[in-house]
């Protein structure tokens, strides 16, 4: 790694790839990008494809939000208080996952596990609240089969909830692997992907709580 500093001197009128940033790998001069860069990039592409999939559900919801078939409307079924708590849980979970990233960088077993445990608990509370909300809707006869609006709503929000639930399993796996195998390079790469996944889910939730719940209660 220390050898790359030799490339960082600025060369006047340098050809492409040999300028100020030629030391940055992936520009040709420094050789191929490190595994960490490639893994982060590849997982980022996957996350973007996930965003595209969610945008399809958002589009379906936007088209069908008014088609209530005489059933309950968005304003009648959404509870802003519950949504605020869910939002706080997921945001704090994402933040504490960021702190876990720092603990992993500092190679601290204790803080890594504390941070991941707290992050997972916030995520778990989020899933519980959402499950309670869904159960309440089904109980009052506003299940996914009631109207096109509710079908689109359950598909969009349920798909996000499914992602969070699977993410919780992944989080537990990461804790076990850090405990059993330590901060090995490949485990840290896996954790990089997990942290990206967890933060990306919070971004999707921002779109859901704003465009589905808040706009739904306003219109």
């Amino acid at each position, binding site marked *: 790694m220390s050898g790359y500093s030799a490339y960082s001197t600025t060369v006047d009128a340098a050809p492409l790839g040999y300028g100020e940033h030629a030391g940055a790998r992936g520009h040709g001069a420094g050789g191929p990008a490190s595994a960490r860069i490639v893994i982060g990039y590849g997982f980022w592409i996957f996350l973007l494809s996930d965003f595209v999939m969610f945008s399809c559900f958002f589009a379906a919801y936007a088209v069908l939000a008014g088609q209530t078939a005489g059933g309950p409307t968005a304003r009648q079924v959404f509870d802003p208080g519950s949504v605020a708590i869910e939002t706080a849980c997921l945001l704090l979970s994402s933040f504490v996952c960021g702190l876990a990233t720092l603990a992993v*960088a500092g190679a601290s077993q204790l803080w890594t596990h504390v941070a991941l445990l707290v992050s997972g608990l916030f995520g778990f509370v989020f899933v519980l609240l959402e499950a309670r909300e869904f159960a309440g809707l089904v109980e009052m006869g506003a299940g996914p089969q009631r109207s096109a609006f509710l079908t689109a709503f359950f598909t969009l929000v349920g798909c996000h909830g499914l992602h969070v639930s699977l993410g919780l399993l992944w989080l537990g796996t990461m804790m076990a692997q850090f405990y059993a195998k330590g901060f090995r390079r490949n485990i840290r790469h896996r954790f990089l992907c997990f942290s990206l996944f967890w933060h990306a889910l919070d971004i999707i939730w921002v779109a859901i709580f704003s465009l589905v719940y808040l706009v739904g209660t306003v219109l």
Partner: protein
Amino acid sequence: MSRQTESAEEFAFADDSAPGDEASTADIARGLRGYLVGLFLAVLLTALSFWAAGTHLIYGPAIPIAIAALAFAQMGVHLVFFLHITTAPDNTNNAMALAFGVLICVIIVFGSAWIMFHLNHNLMPMNQLLQVQR
């Protein structure tokens, strides 16, 4: 403790970065500051969104637009402070992929809404359609 750290070199990431960047041991304080700034901005924007949904201070029809604008701002905050998407030279691929992903998402959402609402507008209502078929 020996299994936790293979070598100090393992943690020297100073020369490259990626989304979800890990901080090296020396950068932990700086990293913590970044996450705290991100959390502060995210909480502020979230609170503003919930406030905007319930207020009468904003012109009613403009409230959904205001909420959407706040949501986009908060997504940007998450991308920068939590996912560490930057425009640094070694991060160009991530930013380019993001730009393409955003383009596709915008086309899907706004394109679908545009087409479907116009279809809805141009189609004959169902009860009239049934009378024509008889």
